[in-house]
């Protein structure tokens, strides 16, 4: 903790507003990453949870045999996995902040609320991406190892990245709100799933296009990615602007 304080003091000393905000952002982000690397609380729980969702998929698809083309709905399965896993992670990400009273400490410091939002969203994004890097290959291993993959399959990285950015952005805002309410885990799901739905819809469409790789569907792929990107921009801008009202105690 003392190192962070030092960094913040240095940041204050370094003059200008923009560089100071950048230094604060870096300090907050480094705090989150360091804390996570020390405890590995969020990453392990998310990883194990994702593995459990994959197991449930296994049970759900166990009786259909080999005739079913999993590729045709793999996009949907993959995104259901991403959404459920990120719900768990978003709930955890503010858990230790409030438990240790860390959030109050940050709010007392003269840090711009938008910087706090960006730092928190970035750390959430990093953790979600870290989990996806492990889980998506596992998904391929479990469900698509026998299937013939289209040449365009690697393109699923585009909707995954765009979608995860949106999930982290809007999820950070909503989880900050729900963390201090009764029944916060359920409430986050109730608020997050409808809000993230347009993004989910676009990302599933793009991912399915990439998985199938049918001639002439690449237009739909890029349109869907574009829609997801527009959603990201609108939602993150809204969340950024509204964040100060959410943490303003």
């Amino acid at each position: 903790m003392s190192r962070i304080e030092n960094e913040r003091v240095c940041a204050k000393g370094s003059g200008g507003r923009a560089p100071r905000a950048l230094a604060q952002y870096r300090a907050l982000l480094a705090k989150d990453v360091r804390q996570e690397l020390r405890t590995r609380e969020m990453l392990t729980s998310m990883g194990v949870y994702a593995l459990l969702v994959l197991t449930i998929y296994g049970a759900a698809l166990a009786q259909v045999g080999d005739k079913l083309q999993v590729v045709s709905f793999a996009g949907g399965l993959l995104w259901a996995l991403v959404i459920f896993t990120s719900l768990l992670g978003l709930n955890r990400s503010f858990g230790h902040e409030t438990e240790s009273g860390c959030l109050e400490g940050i709010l007392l410091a003269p840090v711009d609320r938008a910087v706090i939002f960006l730092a928190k969203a970035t750390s959430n994004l990093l953790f979600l991406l870290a989990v996806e890097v492990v889980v998506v290959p596992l998904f391929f291993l479990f469900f698509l190892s026998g299937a013939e993959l289209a040449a365009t399959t690697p393109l699923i990285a585009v909707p995954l990245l765009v979608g995860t950015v949106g999930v982290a952005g809007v999820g950070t805002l909503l989880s900050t709100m729900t963390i201090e309410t009764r029944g916060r885990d359920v409430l986050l799901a109730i608020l997050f799933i409808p809000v993230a739905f347009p993004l989910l819809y676009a990302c599933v469409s793009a991912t399915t296009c990439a998985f199938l790789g049918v001639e002439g569907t690449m237009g739909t792929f890029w349109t869907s990615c574009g829609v997801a990107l527009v959603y990201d921009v609108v939602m993150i801008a809204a969340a950024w602007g509204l964040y100060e009202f959410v943490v303003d105690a």
Partner: protein
Amino acid sequence: MVQSKADRLVPLLLLLGAVLTAVDVVWTFTLAPLVQGAQLSEPVVIAGQMVTTKLLLSQKIFYLHVPVAIASFVVMAFLAYYGVRFLMTKDRAYDLRAYVAAQVALVFIVATMISGDLWTCFEWGVWWVWEPRLTTYFILMLLVIGYFILRNAIDDPEKRARFCAVFGIIAFIDAPISFFITRLVPSSIHPVVFRTDSGLPPMMLIPFLLGLFGMLMIGFALYRYALRVHGDAQAVEELKEQLEELDARANERAAAAALERLSARHAVEVVREAACDASAVAARADDENPSKED
């Protein structure tokens, strides 16, 4: 309990809205022509007009379904607007307005869902399709329901107002998506109403517009009425709390006074006892003293 100018307009607007929608309904079933459906095997002449297709009655749902849906979007916009106003001014009155707007929005959304779903069931042969318009509208309903759940989950009124305002603004983002999705997604099979190219014939457009304005008036009247009911209820709740607080304070004061009296009496007793003791000691001293003096 404050009667503003808008409140006096409410009965008038309600009446006008009812008349307009009634005219819409009557016009719909009498003057508006039936929409043409599938091609007939051979043309036929009815009442001097050549008819080549089947006639559809189910389209009549449109004349009230679409006005209600548009009214729900308008009320959603008010929900977001009052959220913004609250965040700007921190005036609790705007929180109440946003809450009432969310209620009216939910009512209109449910009405739209019921009428639209009946049309879906008849025309498409299924009760539900995950079609873009239906899906986004369904999501809109879930968002408004989520708004109420969020409201119930927070006890602190100030924080509740802030969080609900933020969520109302976020939730409203889905409304324009739902409105424009039939134009954005080419695969959507939901009919598009507002277009510049084709448009409706006047005999169908007029009742639709009557219904639209009637519904907007009814929506406004409902909103004002609900605002008054909830405002009164809130004021009464506050008065009750104040009274209870006063009672508690009065009780506290009475208890304190009683305690004081008690301790005063006790003190008197203590003093009296002490005095007794002192006199006893003095008497004993008096008893002992003479022997000492001797």
